[in-house]
């Protein structure tokens, strides 16, 4: 008898999704789907609005990493006002970079400490009442405090550069609307010893140690769980180094061969296609050169570290070298290593924040530039969850006529489906009783991608989790409900 298992909603992720698993008569997983069941529609309702509203309006997609949307839209509208990155005043460029690294730091800290660390510290099948951030605070108070303070530090950097911790207005078409005073920079660099840039670097290194210790004790799980070969795509700088603000698009296959060779991101439409499937509001992007079947790819921390040649800060570079050594220089295809990559990036962000804060350009007076107007703009940025594309066209009257957003979680759609299938196979095959821990194991695979389902379909919310086991005729054989924690 064929059974269907539904996990709805997914918990400890941004947004609302569900998973369905089909179990065959032998008790093995025969198919799985990650459904994104919410719809936002920003691409449609921004049409008819003035282009200069885009950086402030579209960031309302999300409350976790709005800075990514803010900056991707700002980069696109920079092109519209004739102020591409080559014309952007240095103060504007560095203020935006600082804002972005601040956001990377807080978003990655949130994901590791608040969302994922309970799985590492207590185990995937620990009691639900314990497996949450409050459980971490009760048993690992220093670690929980560090996580909270790291997020706070990143958010204060955002506030200083964008005006608000969430949904600021700092980046404007062609520049930025404020600089940072030498006093503000000094406070972040040399202020409270428990809350300055060098302390953040130290704590970021400590977080990598937490992961590596877990890895050492659980090598089979971390290396094997939801692991599968795939292509990887990210932005790299002109020298092939890791860059999250600006660069060229590169993709490598599972063996490390370049399959997208550092292209100008403004040509993305030539290289990336999007497929629509009836059962999800989220599209499935793919590299056109490889087709829909083989062209899907991963984005995000793992993909970035697989694509780049080096990391331009010393401590993160050291951690990166160990990361690459583990797979003998080949791309790392282990889903759970996404956490390792994310923590190396957290360290990179902390080092970049310290470096930028030392730069006097942040206190410069030239904040914006206006060049020759254009009627189309494309902005690409590496959001915490991966490559983010914003593309706008405007009419003669400055109103937006077309908007296309390909967000990180959308790029990761097929990989997440793949990860769910592998995790479900490893967890459910041959088992006759479904436990809450087994369901969480599937969620752990999705969570590794830090998906932002709100962004990807353009609602935040947590509802009780319900699982139904159905026979092939849709008759409910068993129901399991997880109440709100």
């Amino acid at each position, binding site marked *: 008898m064929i059974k269907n298992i539904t996990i709805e909603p997914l918990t400890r992720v941004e947004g609302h999704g569900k998973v369905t698993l089909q179990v065959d008569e032998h008790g093995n997983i025969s198919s799985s789907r990650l459904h994104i069941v919410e719809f936002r529609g920003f691409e449609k309702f921004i049409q*008819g*609005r*003035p282009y*200069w*509203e885009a*950086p*402030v*309006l579209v960031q*309302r997609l999300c409350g976790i990493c709005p800075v990514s949307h803010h900056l991707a839209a700002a980069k696109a509208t920079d092109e519209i006002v004739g102020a591409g990155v080559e014309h952007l005043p240095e103060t504007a460029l560095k203020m935006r970079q600082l804002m972005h690294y601040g956001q990377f730091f807080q978003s990655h800290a949130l994901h590791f400490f608040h969302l994922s660390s309970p799985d590492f510290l207590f185990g995937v099948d620990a009691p639900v009442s314990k497996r949450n951030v409050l459980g971490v605070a009760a048993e690992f108070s220093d670690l929980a405090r560090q996580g909270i303070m790291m997020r706070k530090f990143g958010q204060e950097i955002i506030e200083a550069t*964008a*005006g*608000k911790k969430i*949904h*600021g*207005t*700092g980046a*404007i*078409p062609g520049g930025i*609307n*404020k600089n940072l005073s030498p006093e503000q920079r000094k406070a972040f660099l040399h202020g409270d010893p428990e809350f300055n840039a060098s302390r953040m670097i130290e704590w970021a290194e400590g977080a990598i140690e937490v992961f590596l210790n877990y890895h050492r004790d659980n090598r089979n799980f971390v290396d094997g769980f939801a692991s599968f070969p795939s292509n990887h795509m990210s932005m790299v700088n002109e020298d092939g180094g890791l860059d999250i603000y600006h660069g060229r698009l590169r993709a490598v296959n599972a063996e490390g061969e370049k399959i997208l060779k550092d292209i100008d991101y403004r040509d993305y439409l030539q290289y990336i296609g999007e497929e629509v499937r009836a059962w999800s509001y989220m599209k499935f992007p793919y590299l056109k050169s490889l087709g829909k079947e083989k062209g899907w790819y991963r984005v995000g921390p793992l993909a970035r570290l697989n694509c780049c040649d080096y990391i331009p800060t010393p401590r993160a570079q050291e951690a990166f070298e160990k990361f690459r050594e583990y797979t003998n220089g080949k791309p790392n295809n282990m889903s759970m290593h996404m956490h390792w990559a994310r923590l190396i990036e957290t360290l990179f962000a902390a080092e970049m924040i310290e470096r930028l804060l030392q730069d006097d350009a942040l206190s410069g007076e030239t904040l*914006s530039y*206006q060049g020759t107007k254009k009627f189309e703009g494309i902005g690409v940025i590496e959001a915490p969850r991966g490559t983010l594309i914003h593309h706008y066209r405007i009419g*003669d*009257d*400055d*109103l937006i006529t077309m908007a296309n957003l390909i967000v990180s979680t959308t790029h990761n759609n097929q990989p997440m489906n793949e990860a769910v299938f592998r995790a479900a196979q490893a967890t459910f095959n041959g088992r006759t009783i479904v436990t809450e821990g087994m369901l969480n194991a599937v969620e752990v695979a999705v969570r590794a991608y830090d998906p932002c389902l709100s962004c990807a379909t353009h609602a935040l919310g947590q509802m009780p989790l319900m699982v139904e086991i159905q026979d092939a005729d849709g008759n409910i054989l068993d129901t399991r409900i997880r109440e709100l924690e």
Partner: protein
Amino acid sequence: MNELVNFTIDKKECMSTKGKYLVDAAAENGIYIPTLCNITGIQPRGACRLCTVKVNGKLTTACTTPVYNNMEVENESPELQDLRKSIIELMFADGNHYCPYCEKSGDCELQAIAYRYRVTVPRFPYSFPKREIEAGHPLLAKDHNRCILCKRCIKAVKDDDGRSIFAFARRSHKLTISVDTRLSHVMSPEKAAYAAEICPVGAILLKGAAFKKPIGERKYDKKPIGTELEM
């Protein structure tokens, strides 16, 4: 010589010049009466009705009522507070006011007054009207979604020959403010900036100026509306 008159607002003794409009006379005495249509120095019309007070027990608009001796004014009674709050709520329900991405946010008088009167959710259903943005003018965009029909732009923005650049068009619930396309194309940048500045909401937008003022430095970031007058 201007004749001085004595009057009371909420039983507080006040003094001003005879004939001065009540809204301005109150301000002289450190009392704030809210208004969204009035501009000091320009003939008042009482369009927004937000400054409604009771003078000797009778409802009237403070922007059109001159002060006189022994006038007794009621300004902050629960009844008037609720009346004003209703007017503000109706304005929000009547248009499409999305503060989160409006470039006037922080400088918007309607938003500031809504905060002052603690408007959270309007008691009236939103009408979600379908309105256009007129952005074909070289220096300005007119977002009809946010217009509260206060007439400030009609009264205060004229070309050098005294011709109105803004005017009412249509009637009743279809009433709108139209922009003279011919005049808007020869409008000076200073005049355009003035039009955007006096608009109490984000309905008249100066192109190329959006979000240039950082959060923290906008008009109402530091002081809530009215507190600059109040003692």
